[in-house]
């Protein structure tokens, strides 16, 4: 297990490095002189040249990449253009809001998706199964920003049950959680459908397995068979899928943050693109990538904890 973790960590480092190379190339290929963008139209050539030297842009490209690479691993992603603050600080400031949003989305999808999948698998073909099946496909098909807008209009504007915008007062956890309900629903609702379908399919498969027949032949209670003998196996593909799904949730989070005017990395990137604040865009993308890779690493380790067959192979 330890060996495996180290191996996976090494792989993660390589992936992050490749992403850095890609990001660097992308920034390099963007037309326009970063020094000119930073200084604005009224700067003189001498000022631009001075900044180019200061930013290291006069160096050969491979030295530029090496500097970017070394600095990035040390947590230094440069300074953003508008306020000249370190990109790392700006991104990390916003990160907790996005993390909370995604965690909320995961809680929705797990808390609703897994029980629904389980429930429909026990009585396949029944009326409940069909209704939930149709609803699942429905919420999968609807883009998260549509859900966000409708959730906002129905629950915040018309019914006034929940607040419409913002992340709540800092320091007031309850208020923050209340502000999180609708945006996290928008991020997680599609995943409720995915998980319901996935858990249903894998439950049906596991319930056909011969060890379930053995458990029944030993007269074990049906509850024990469903939840302990079948669900613990049926849940394994879900964990992997959720790890990958974090990527999609991160992109849904951009829309949810814009619609609900919440702070967060998504909103930050959106604003940075509008103001052509490239260091901030690349920094935020890099942080998001690291987050995505870290969560997938955790998902794989969780599968290892849940599945002894995987664990012993590690």
């Amino acid at each position, binding site marked *: 297990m330890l060996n495996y973790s180290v191996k996976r960590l090494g792989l993660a480092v390589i992936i992050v490095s490749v992403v850095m190379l890609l990001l660097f190339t992308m920034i390099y290929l963007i037309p326009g002189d970063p020094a000119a963008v930073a200084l604005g139209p009224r700067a003189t050539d001498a000022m631009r040249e001075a900044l180019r030297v200061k930013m290291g842009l006069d160096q050969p490209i491979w030295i530029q990449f090496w500097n970017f690479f070394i600095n990035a691993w040390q947590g230094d992603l440069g300074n953003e253009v508008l306020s000249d603050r370190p990109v790392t600080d700006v991104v990390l400031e916003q990160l907790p809001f996005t993390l909370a949003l995604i965690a909320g989305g995961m809680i929705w999808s797990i808390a609703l998706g897994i029980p629904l999948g389980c429930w429909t698998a026990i009585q396949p073909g029944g009326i409940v199964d069909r209704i939930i099946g149709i609803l699942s496909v429905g919420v999968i098909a609807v883009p998260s920003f549509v859900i966000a807008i409708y959730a906002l209009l129905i629950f915040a504007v018309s019914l006034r049950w929940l607040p419409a915008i913002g992340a709540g007062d800092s320091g007031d956890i309850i208020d923050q959680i209340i502000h999180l309900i609708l945006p996290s629903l928008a991020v997680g609702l599609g995943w409720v459908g995915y998980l319901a379908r996935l858990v249903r399919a894998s439950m049906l498969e596991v319930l056909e397995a011969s*060890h379930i027949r*053995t458990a029944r*032949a*030993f*007269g074990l209670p049906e509850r*024990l068979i469903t939840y302990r003998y079948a669900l613990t196996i049926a849940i394994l593909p879900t964990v992997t899928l959720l790890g990958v799904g974090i990527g999609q949730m991160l992109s849904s989070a951009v829309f949810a943050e814009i619609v609900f005017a919440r702070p967060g990395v998504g909103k930050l990137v959106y604003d940075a693109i509008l103001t052509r604040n490239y260091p901030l865009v690349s920094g935020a993308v890099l942080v998001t990538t690291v987050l995505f890779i870290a969560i997938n690493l955790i998902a794989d380790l969780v599968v290892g904890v849940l*599945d002894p067959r995987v664990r012993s192979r590690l």
Partner: protein
Amino acid sequence: MNILEIQNLNVTFDTEDGQLRALRDVSFNVPEHRIVGIVGESGCGKSTLINSILGLLADNGQVEKGKILFEGQNLTELNSSQLRELRGVRISTVFQDPMGALNPVISVGTQMLHIQYRSSLSKSEKLDNAAEMLRRVRIPDRESALTRYPHEFSGGMKQRIAIAMAMMMEPALLIADEPTTALDATLEVATIELLQDLQQQIGCSVLFISHHLGVIAELCDDVVVMYAGEVVERGTTRQIFYRPMHPYTERLLQCDPAGQSERTRHLPTIPGEIPDLRLRTPGCIFAARCHCREDICDSTPPEVEIEGQSARCHRLVA
């Protein structure tokens, strides 16, 4: 005294193409302390028979008529929770596939604890029971075996663990559904001997299902020959193997590779195939493939009994 008496059991399945009769008028007994073998080719209704006894028929299957008397109690009249009370305690089962028969994500010890869920013993007493059962099936290093998972054992060990689980509650009847089919020849012998030992120690009866005639001859006291959902012949092992009455049994014994006296490239087979049970005619079920078929075979054959051996065949009347 009989532990299990099956009387005129008829099981049907509703399929999209109409009703399928998987078992027709199946009758036989499993006497106390005896091992009864059921032999027949694939699709003869062995699995349906087991599932009927266990009350685990698929949703589209039902016992149409007949009785399954277990210790005098008709199992077909019990509800699902009453049946569950018997399963694993009075009637236990070992299945064919040792690789898949144990839950892959729950440790052996925990699975053995779960089987004892009805018992009022403390957890450590239950674990002692489990370890003791593993000793009886000769699993080495029992304490650590309890904490390990099924994939950490070999196929033969897994089957022995499955046997230990089945025998743990000291059932009155053990159903063994081709327990050695997935094992190689040496393991097969060892597993058969183990089953015999445990059967004698516990004093249970065994319903042993196999298509391996050699194993049946070695292990069983009585044999039931099934074909296409019917019992065509039954008797003691000696009677069936030395004096088969039904043409199907005769042909089946001729097909046993172990019985071939000389080397041959072509093993004997029974020409034809199992009839479609949805298109069942009233005559003898084996008539279409029978080497001594006559016109009278189109009518229902009588059940003829001679010295406890019985078969369904017109030939026996003459």
